[in-house]
């Protein structure tokens, strides 16, 4: 039976990893285009989790359905954040940007702490404990739905970047800033759009995450770190890398929780991070620096 246990955990890790990947994707897109490191990324994801929690408690809205309005809401939030808070810092030293967003992260997480308190909140879905038997293994329904939702959002984002004019413009912007400016793209607008998309990813991932885990404000910094770890492992600026990183971390964490101890799982992702930094600093799918 051990083999099927491992297989089960592996599948679980892959499914969770897809949600992680979506969250990290947002961070990667923002960094790739705006060149700003969103240190408050996990905080926004947790903010989305609480919003989802409230929507569920008050309106009985399913978290996975809630992902859509929340993504829209966070898109607007990201747009405004870029336009009014981050944009003035675009030409400031990287350290200043970083400290600004660290400040924002502190504000967000402590506001949540003040409103909701430190205890973790649980969302009890009708299908929380349902599962399918697939061959020898058991797959949680909720995890499968969550992963499917993450895949849909991710695919939509990829399609946007691949097939729309604006998406192509953003990619041009990421590749060559002056080039984009020369051909007449409004860089500020694209930055705001990108920041919006990045936060929409964090928002959607946060909403979906509510189906999988209890929410507490203390999740926020660890989500930020998780997203960074994933993006660095996958390669900063590489969208496919973020997904691959998400899967890797999802699987590594799931395996670590049964092999070592659930509370030690973050150690495993950091070990992975250190290994990647040491062996392949540009990340698994990143372009090597010249």
């Amino acid at each position, binding site marked *: 039976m051990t083999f099927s246990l491992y297989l089960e955990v592996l599948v679980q890790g892959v499914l969770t990893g897809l949600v992680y990947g979506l969250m990290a994707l947002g961070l990667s897109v923002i960094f790739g285009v705006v060149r700003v490191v969103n240190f408050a990324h996990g905080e926004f994801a947790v903010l989305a989790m609480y919003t989802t929690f409230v929507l569920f408690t008050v309106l009985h809205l399913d978290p996975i359905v809630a992902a859509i309005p929340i993504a829209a809401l966070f898109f607007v939030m990201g747009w405004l954040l870029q336009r009014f808070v981050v944009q003035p810092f675009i030409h400031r030293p990287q350290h200043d940007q970083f400290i600004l967003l660290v400040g924002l992260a*502190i*504000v967000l997480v402590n506001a949540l702490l*003040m409103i909701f308190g430190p205890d973790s909140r649980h969302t009890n879905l009708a299908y929380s404990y349902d599962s399918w038997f697939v061959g020898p293994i058991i797959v949680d329904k909720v995890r499968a739905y969550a992963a499917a939702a993450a895949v849909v959002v991710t695919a939509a984002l990829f399609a946007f970047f691949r097939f729309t004019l604006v998406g192509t413009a953003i990619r041009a912007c990421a590749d060559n800033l002056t080039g984009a400016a020369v051909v007449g793209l409004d860089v500020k607008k694209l930055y705001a759009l990108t920041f919006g998309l990045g936060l929409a990813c964090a928002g959607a991932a946060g909403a979906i995450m509510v189906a999988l885990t209890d929410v507490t404000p203390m999740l926020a*910094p660890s989500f930020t*770190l998780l997203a960074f770890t994933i993006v660095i492992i996958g390669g900063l600026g590489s969208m496919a890398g973020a997904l691959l990183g998400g899967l890797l971390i999802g699987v590594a964490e799931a395996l670590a929780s049964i092999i070592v101890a659930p*509370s030690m799982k973050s150690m495993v992702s950091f070990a992975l991070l250190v290994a990647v930094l*040491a062996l392949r600093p540009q990340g698994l799918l990143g372009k090597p620096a010249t």
Partner: protein
Amino acid sequence: MIAHGAIAQILAGVSRRARVLIGGLAIVMLAAPLVLDRYLLSVLILVCLAAYTGQAWNILLGFAGLLSLGHALYLGLGAYVSAALYVHFGIGPWLGVFPAVAVCIVVAASLGWLAFRFRIEGVYFALLTIAFAEVARVGFDHIGFTGGAGGFFLPVRSEDQGQWWNLRGGPTFFYYLALLLAAAAFVLCAALRRSRVGHRWLAVREDPEAARALGIDINRARMSALVLSAAMTGIAGVFQAFYANNLFPSQIFDISRSIDIILAPIIGGVGTLFGPILGAFVLAPLGEVLISITGAIGLNAPGTKALFFGLFLMAIIAGVPSGLWPRLRELLRLRSASR
């Protein structure tokens, strides 16, 4: 020669007004326990500690241009090593500080080796520092020898009171110790700012490539800043352990601790000598005032103070990015007092 006069002025640098200011501050601080009650003294201890750790962190970002967001790591390591030696082996902190600092140095050096060898700079470096601190936080949760997640407690016995050689003493004792630390850190940083290694750090901070072209080994310069900063922070950890008498991995290694360390120098002015001190004087009392105000209006939920600090941090970095000290220096007309 004109050169000699000018150089003496640049090197000595400190104007008369600044000397008066430093002297006055020293007298006030030395006399403080005579007038202050226990509570205010505890606030002043926080001020001195924040000034001290701020000075240590400032060496890294302000001098060498490396942003660490994981300095809680060294605070925690210093605290745990010295506390474990005291509790399990009866080794007092004056002796225990050496292994505590040694552990900080080894950990900082391995972080530095990883970072500098593989050209991990800027944001990546900051993330690596956070990751190291997180590994320690999670790791110490599982070390039974030091109590794990349940906390590690130093015995507080009335018969130990006054054993200064074991850092067992009253608030006044701890106050003077904290003051001594803060003063020593200031003097050390002032001396470093004028030293050869200090100039190397500044060059590396300003432009690593240009620094290399002037014969400076930038990895060595960065490593020395990192190790010194970590060692100094580790000493603060020893102080913390014997002052608080309890240690929890979820507190002392937490990122919010690292943020606490960086607040004072950022508010006061990164890269300045007086910045961390001024920042500490603004910050610790501000925190206390905030707690009492929010408590009075019934807003005493956890996180209130931190929320305001976060807002304050954003306001400072947006409005006065070079910190309060350069402004105050202009106000007091202390030109070239200390940069």
